[in-house]
């Protein structure tokens, strides 16, 4: 029969909605209340030093709204007001300087879209399929348009020694300080001292009022609440670059300074938290791809666990060190699928399988797991995180 939603006058078509200013700063409509960050409580000892995950299974396009972009804190998200903000540049400089927030706004600004991925993204999956959802397996990532001043500008302002063998040590104003050492070549290349994301001020949880943006490199180096930049002769070898964020190989030796995030992709829908609900027929398979080495050039999708592949459509041409959205507009016959995606970047690198990664690194790496992910989509449209031969 006829659809009453069409044939009957609905309240929203008769009465009135909210006036302007009902919500001076709006949040998503109530029907979207499940599109939120989530954490995995057993991962860490305490939510103050922990991580949560972006609901990538429920988002589309490439820009991550700040309100649901994953958070990682080492001693909690602090409240630091702009008037209390100071940024020091010292060390091997002609003149050590202190900037206020207002000072930073007077330098020439740049705008760039970059992804920020925690080195531990997908880290729980090394030993086997563990977490059932793209949010949990791949949600330690976000992608924002940043506005800020290049780190190079601030280093030059202080008359820093910019020789290629120097290092830049950066730390935050929070109790963890989360200090990291960055080689000068990278510091001068594309590192940004950012104060806006997606057009508005950074959120508290992302380092308000100022954070570092280190394009293509692991998220831990994107120091939040940035308070100090020191030019040095060598790396500090801080806790976050020795005890953590180093990669133990099978023989017990460990890789260090593994800063770049290699090319990676994941199908975000269908996926365990985003099952197929419409039965057989037209189906949009979609996902995200990214590379810390530059642009994504191609993404292939397999429905049979990697036996055959077809090339997906990129929503837009891949952008440097930013998320790329891909679509495979397909027909689903209602049978089981083993869905995979495989990214390639401008260097010719091809995203490896988990077996290939394990062959080189063993099982104990924790960080930098960029393996091909498999979702088992069942006949009823539900999906599960699996590993395949």
């Amino acid at each position, binding site marked *: 029969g006829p659809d009453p939603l069409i044939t009957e006058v609905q309240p929203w078509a008769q009465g009135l909605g909210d006036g302007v200013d009902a919500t001076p700063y709006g949040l998503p409509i109530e029907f979207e*209340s499940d599109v939120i960050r989530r954490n995995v409580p057993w991962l860490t000892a305490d939510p103050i030093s922990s991580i949560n995950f972006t609901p990538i299974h429920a988002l589309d396009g490439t820009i991550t709204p700040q309100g649901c972009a994953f958070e990682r804190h080492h001693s909690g998200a602090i409240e630091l007001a702009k008037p209390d903000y100071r940024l020091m540049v*010292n060390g091997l400089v002609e003149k050590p300087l202190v900037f206020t927030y207002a000072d930073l706004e007077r330098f020439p600004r740049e705008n760039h879209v970059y992804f920020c991925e925690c080195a531990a993204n997908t880290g729980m999956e090394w030993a086997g*399929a563990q977490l059932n959802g793209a949010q949990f397996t791949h949600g330690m990532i976000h992608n924002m348009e940043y506005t800020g001043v290049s780190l190079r500008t601030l280093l030059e*302002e202080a008359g820093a020694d910019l020789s290629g063998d120097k290092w830049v040590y950066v730390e935050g104003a929070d109790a963890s300080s989360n200090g990291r050492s960055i080689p000068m070549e990278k510091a001068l290349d594309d590192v940004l001292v950012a104060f806006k994301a997606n057009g508005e001020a950074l959120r508290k949880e992302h380092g308000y009022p100022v954070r570092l943006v280190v394009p293509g490199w692991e998220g831990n180096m994107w120091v939040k609440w940035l308070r100090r930049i020191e030019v040095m002769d060598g790396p500090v070898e801080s*806790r976050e670059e020795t005890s953590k964020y180093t990669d133990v190989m099978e023989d017990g030796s460990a890789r260090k300074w593994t800063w770049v995030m290699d090319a990676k992709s994941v199908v975000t829908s269908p996926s365990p938290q985003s099952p197929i609900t419409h039965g057989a027929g037209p189906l949009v398979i979609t996902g995200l791809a990214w590379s810390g080495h530059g642009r994504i050039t191609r993404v292939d999708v397999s429905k049979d666990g990697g036996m055959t592949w077809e090339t997906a459509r990129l929503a837009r041409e891949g952008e440097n060190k930013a998320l790329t959205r891909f679509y495979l507009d397909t027909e689903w016959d209602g049978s089981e699928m083993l869905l995979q995606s495989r990214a390639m970047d401008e260097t010719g690198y091809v995203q490896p399988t988990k077996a290939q990664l394990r062959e080189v690194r063993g099982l104990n790496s924790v960080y930098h797991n960029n393996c091909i992910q498999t979702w088992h989509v069942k006949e009823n449209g539900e999906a599960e995180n699996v590993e395949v*031969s």
Partner: protein
Amino acid sequence: ESYGLGREALPEEIAAWDLDVSPDGTGLPPGSGSVEDGEAIFAEACGACHGVFAEGVGNWPKLAGGDGTLANEDPVKTVGSYWPYLSTTFDYVHRSMPFGNAQSLTADEVYAITAYILYSNFIVEDDFVLSNDNFTEVEMPNADGFFVDDRAETEYPIWSGEPCMQNCKDSVEITMRATVLDVTPEETAEEAAPAAEEAAAEPAPEAAVEETAAVDPELAAAGEKVFRKCSACHQVGEGAKNRAGPQLNGIVGRDIGGVDGFRYSGTMADHGGVWDEATLAAFLADPRGTFKGTKMAFAGLKKEDDVAAVIAYLKDASANAN
């Protein structure tokens, strides 16, 4: 090009912030500390999370042990088994520990704690004294255990080029399923609940509202912020559990040392009596002065306003926990 922005950093300012210590000892403040002193300081300042023998409590990091496990299935990465530089330990403790009370330790205390962590890893003897003079003489067991990122040589060449598109494998089997492990958090009813249900649920805790009427909401809100210092070890409110410290629901009016299942210090367990506001205020201002021997590794709240605010918050949060 110079923009002439910013001002020159003063030496005192640089000294206050430039605390990092490098592997060659650059940045070490003058000072010293013994294993013996470190044992006591560690027990008080670090033991609640890291264990009095640095063995770790619950999910908190183990700082000792794990020798020879790095090639095992589950390597135990501690200061002794994994950390390549001693400077990292000093640097991190000095700047960022204890958790929730960073930069409260003197240089000598940090030397002592570092010495004790070395001792707990069998790297030095019990009569060892660590100082800025002998710091770089300590040999870390895993100093040679690291190599610089070699992915460009060992991985990129083999994972490049035109990938297979057809007949890439003969067959595919599922070898593991996430649902077998069942470690994925449930999406809780609370977050998925439609707005109508939430509204219906709201007026429930009426009794609690009456009790909290006596608490100044602004003071309680201020106390909630101060309580962040405490929240590394203590929980309060609905579902609060004992962690490094006992849960604090109903603390005002509760028996001292009275939470079942929490291992109190002898001092606290044997004290008797109840926590009234005056006792609690004295304890919060000076924990170890008020209850000598308490396990609570916290220096105390220096401001009277903060003490009052935290007590207001504890009362408020306890009431809302019902």
